[in-house]
Structure formats: structure tokens, C-alpha cells
């Protein structure tokens, strides 16, 4: 029984990994590029899942850390030569983490709807900093002219300018972030976060100082959003304030809701589904003139998904099972 459960958990994961590993050789250039974007958004969604799904902290400002990391990547990269990943990535992640710790330190003193509003307010502040400050290029954004590399001496190990290399680096980052969060979930830290989500009062009564736990989760989530932000900036070679606007924070929350809150799989599936739906409704070949108003059918689809699948797409099998047991003669 236990082996069965472990298998049914591991098999889809292994299959997804295998698919992603061979995808660059079977998919066209456009789809490979789209898959990179999807994996980056998957990392972003995973980072928010740690807060929303695991700890019960609904942050409506998570794009701030994604955007700050993306801007840091663009601003720290020299104009004429390639930055080394060896210092650029740690620096970017440190900046994203510090920003998250600062925002978390203040916003975690509030709860529920106030927490949602305070995180949103901080993200909007970050948005206007980059929107209105000259150094960041204002609303035009900023270019990253030369993509970073990892080299030892004269030997270049990783050149992110090469699409195939970038694909596999993104893929590896997704797998690592997933594995890290899975380890967190199994460890005492993750169990404590789940306890805080289920009943913070009981956790405090048992002797857990819950604030440092929540702050650590917030910082870690910010760092992982920073991984996504770094990859995003390098991929497009361009950042603008829109990537930390409030609808970006909303989009990543929608991904979690679509995929199913509370599981790592849900975050990745949700990101994938969101990108697919968006591409679908933006396709002029399919929808003609309506394609320009893709938000409308996308919004309706999301409403339908939420109404019909309260636990998201990954919660669908369990939902169907419980329906079948509730109506024994139905099938």
C-alpha cells in the first residue's frame, strides 16, 4: 500500500522530468522557448506555494521579489561584458532575500486580509520605485546586453546566451527548487509551517515562536522567487516595471489556485496550465479578433475551474473518487 502510494507519487514526477528533458529535441523553437517561460513561472509559483499552501500566508505582493531580482540581474550586469554567474546569482538572491525579510518583518505582524493588503502595498511601492527612478530606466525598463556566463579561467562552462544551455539550466533550477521544497516539507521546519497554517494558536501554546518561522519561510520564498526573477531577466534580456506590478502577483496566485493549493505539483501544473490557456486564448488562428481580448475567456475559464474544481487540477482525482464513493451506483 505504502509502496503503491510512493509509486503513484513518483511516476508522474519522473514522467514529467523525462518529458522536459527530451522536449528541446522534439518541440519546435517557439514551443521550447515557451516551455522555458513556463518553467520559470513554475519556479515562481513554487516559491509562493511555500507561503500560501504550506504556511497559510496569502501574499499578494510576491511579484516584488521576482521583479527586484530581475532588476538586480539587469542592473548589476556590466554593459559590455558578461557577468559571472558565480557572483551575480548569489548577489541577486541575497538582494531578493533581504527585500523579502524586510517586507516580511513588517507585514507578518498582521494577519488575514490585512496581510494581503500590506504585502500588496509593499509590492506597489517597489513597482513605483522602479517605475519612477531614473537609474532603473523608468517605465521603459532596462536591457541586459550581455548574458551572464560561468567560466573557469578561459573555459566557459555555462553560457546562458545559448538557448539549449539556458533551457537545461532552467530545467535544473526547477528540479532543484522542487527538491528543496520537498525536503523542507518533510523536515521539522516544514511540519512546523504546516502546524502554523493549521492552528497557529496551538503552535504558540506548544512553545513555537511562530514569527521567526514565518519570517524564515517568507525569506526563503523571496529567495526562490529571486531564482525565477534572475532566469526571467536573463531569458528576455529585458526588464520593465510591469513584472512587479500587482497583476503579476495576482497571476502567480491564480496559477496556484488552478493547479491546486497545498501541493508542489499543483504549483507547477498550475503554471503550465496558465501559460497554455493564455496562449490558447491569445491565438488569432483560433479566436480571430477575440484573441485581442484574451483576458475575458481566460477569466471565465478560471472562474469555471475554481467553481468546478475547488482543489485545482491536481485535486481532481481525489475529488472524483469522493464523488464516486458518495454515489455508489453512479459508475
Amino acid at each position, binding site marked *: 500500500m505504502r509502496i503503491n502510494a510512493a509509486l503513484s507519487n513518483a511516476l508522474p514526477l519522473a514522467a514529467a522530468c523525462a518529458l522536459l528533458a527530451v522536449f528541446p529535441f522534439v518541440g519546435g523553437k517557439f514551443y521550447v522557448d515557451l516551455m522555458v517561460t513556463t518553467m520559470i513561472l513554475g519556479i515562481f509559483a513554487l516559491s509562493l506555494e511555500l507561503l500560501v499552501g504550506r504556511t497559510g500566508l496569502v501574499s499578494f505582493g510576491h511579484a516584488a521579489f521576482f521583479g527586484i531580482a530581475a532588476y538586480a540581474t539587469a542592473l548589476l550586469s556590466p554593459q559590455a561584458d558578461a557577468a559571472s554567474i558565480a557572483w551575480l546569482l548569489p548577489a541577486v538572491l541575497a538582494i531578493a532575500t533581504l527585500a523579502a525579510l524586510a517586507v516580511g518583518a513588517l507585514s507578518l505582524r498582521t494577519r488575514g486580509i490585512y496581510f494581503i493588503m500590506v504585502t500588496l502595498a509593499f509590492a506597489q511601492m517597489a513597482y513605483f520605485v522602479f517605475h519612477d527612478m531614473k537609474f532603473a530606466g523608468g517605465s521603459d525598463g532596462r536591457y541586459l546586453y550581455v548574458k551572464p556566463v560561468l567560466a573557469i579561467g578561459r573555459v566557459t562552462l555555462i553560457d546562458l546566451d545559448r538557448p539549449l544551455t539556458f533551457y537545461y539550466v532552467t530545467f535544473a533550477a526547477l528540479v532543484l527548487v522542487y527538491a*528543496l521544497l520537498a*525536503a*523542507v516539507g*518533510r*523536515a*521539522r*521546519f*516544514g*511540519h*512546523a509551517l504546516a*502546524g502554523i497554517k*493549521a*492552528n497557529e*494558536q*496551538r*503552535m*504558540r*501554546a*506548544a*512553545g*513555537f*515562536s*511562530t514569527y521567526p*518561522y514565518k519570517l*524564515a519561510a517568507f525569506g526563503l520564498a523571496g529567495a526562490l522567487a529571486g531564482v525565477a526573477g534572475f532566469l526571467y531577466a536573463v531569458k528576455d534580456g529585458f526588464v520593465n516595471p510591469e513584472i512587479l506590478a500587482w497583476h503579476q502577483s495576482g497571476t502567480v496566485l491564480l496559477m496556484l489556485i488552478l493547479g491546486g493549493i497545498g501541493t508542489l505539483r499543483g504549483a507547477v501544473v498550475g503554471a503550465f496550465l496558465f501559460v497554455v490557456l493564455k496562449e490558447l486564448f491569445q491565438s488569432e488562428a483560433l479566436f480571430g479578433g477575440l484573441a485581442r481580448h484574451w483576458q475575458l475567456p481566460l477569466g471565465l475559464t478560471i472562474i469555471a475551474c475554481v467553481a468546478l474544481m475547488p482543489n485545482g487540477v491536481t485535486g481532481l482525482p481525489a475529488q472524483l473518487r469522493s464523488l464516486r464513493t458518495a454515489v455508489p451506483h453512479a459508475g
Partner: protein
Amino acid sequence: MLDDILLAASNISRRFGGLTAVDRVSLTLVRGEVHAVIGTNGAGKSTLVNVLAGELPPSSGRVHLHGRDVTRWSQPRRARGGIGRTYQRTTIFPRSTVFENCRLTAQANHQHALNLRSAAAHCGESTGLADRAIEQAGLTGQTHRVAGTLSHGQKRQLEIAMCLATAPQVLLLDEPLAGMGAEETERMLGLLAALKPGHAILLVEHDMDAVFRIADRITVMVNGTVIATGDPVDIRRNADVQTAYLGEIDVPPAAAITA
């Protein structure tokens, strides 16, 4: 004997705006004793428990734990210092198993939170504490049941097991018998009697029959103030208590309990 005073509250007051919920209350909890606090609804009993547990700061007065002034300690710190509490409304983790409920609270004393290499389920210290607490609370047969599916009485037992898993010396129990049937009440009283030797227990309870059976000392509160403290015999004889409280609910205890 003085060494056995685990928790001492002196002159505790707690005001909410113009309302004084607890007014200059002093009491001591001694190892090996059940100290019951009785009083009508709104007498300030739960507020007193919240102040002792550190969930609410007192407006004035001091709280000492093992002789140390802990008035300014946060609730988690006091809990790690040896205070366990239950709530009037059962607080458990309903979707987890009985074992995981206890293992998680046991983890509070052995945090090492950032060790990501070992799975929580294999943490030896906390699994040992959890197993012992489950056994002590009489839930051995239910170890792997999901907490939400337990009966009401078992949930209350589980809440006490979750406290015991943190190895407390002081137990603050807020109406552990509320909503229980006769059989469940007997089981809970047996559990409290078994816990008495190693712990100092504060029992807030409306079931007078149970209180007079198990308490070593009783404090009676009316409108936030203590009107009498003494052993059960004294309290029964006390005229003030008779008029203020006991006379008022002179009905069979079983009928006084509403589900």
C-alpha cells in the same frame, strides 16, 4: 513544600477598556495538586488562564514560574519553560494523525528547525515524547487515526496528550469536561488523577461534581475577583460561596452539562 510551588500569580488584574475582567487575583499552583477555579460565565476564569499562559499580558500584577518572574515572557517562551494549556474549544490539527499531532508539539522543545536533511517523522526525541504522551493520555489504540475523526472526548484527551508531549510541569486546563458524557467524564477524571503526582494542574470547570471530587484546592471567582480559596470542605461550607455561586446552579451536574 515551597519548592513545589511551580506557578504563582500575584495581584493579577486584566482590564479591557472600562471592563475589569480579572481584578487583583492571586493564586499558586503546587506540584501534585489540582487547583480548581470555579465561577459563573464571565467571572474571568478564561482571562486568568490566558494571562497565566502568557497569551494576554496582565494590566498589573506578576506571574512567577519556578520562582522566576515570567510576566514579560511571551506565550511560546513560557510554554518552553514548562506551561502546557488546553482551550475551552479544542485546538488540535484535525487533518493530521494523533501521532503527528503529538510529534509536532513535542518538536517545540527540540527545534533544530533548519535541519533539512532528516525527515521530521524520523526525529527520535520528538517521536519518543509523542509515543509516551499518547500512552499517558490513554490513546494508544488511536495512534494512527486522523485527529478530526476522533470522538469529542478523545479529541479532548488528544489535546492533553499534545500538552504532555511538550513535557510540561504546569497544566492549565480550560473546561476539559465540557460537552462530555458520563463515561468520557470518568475517563478524563481518571487521566487527571494519574497526571496529578508529577504536575501542578489548574482546572477551570463547570462540572461541580467533578470539581469537588478531584480538586485539592478551589478558588471561587465572581466578577473578576476571588471571593474564596480553600479546600473543597471549606468551600462547601463557605456562606459567601453558597449565595454567590453554588446555590445558583443547584441542579444535578449531569443536567448542567450541555452538549
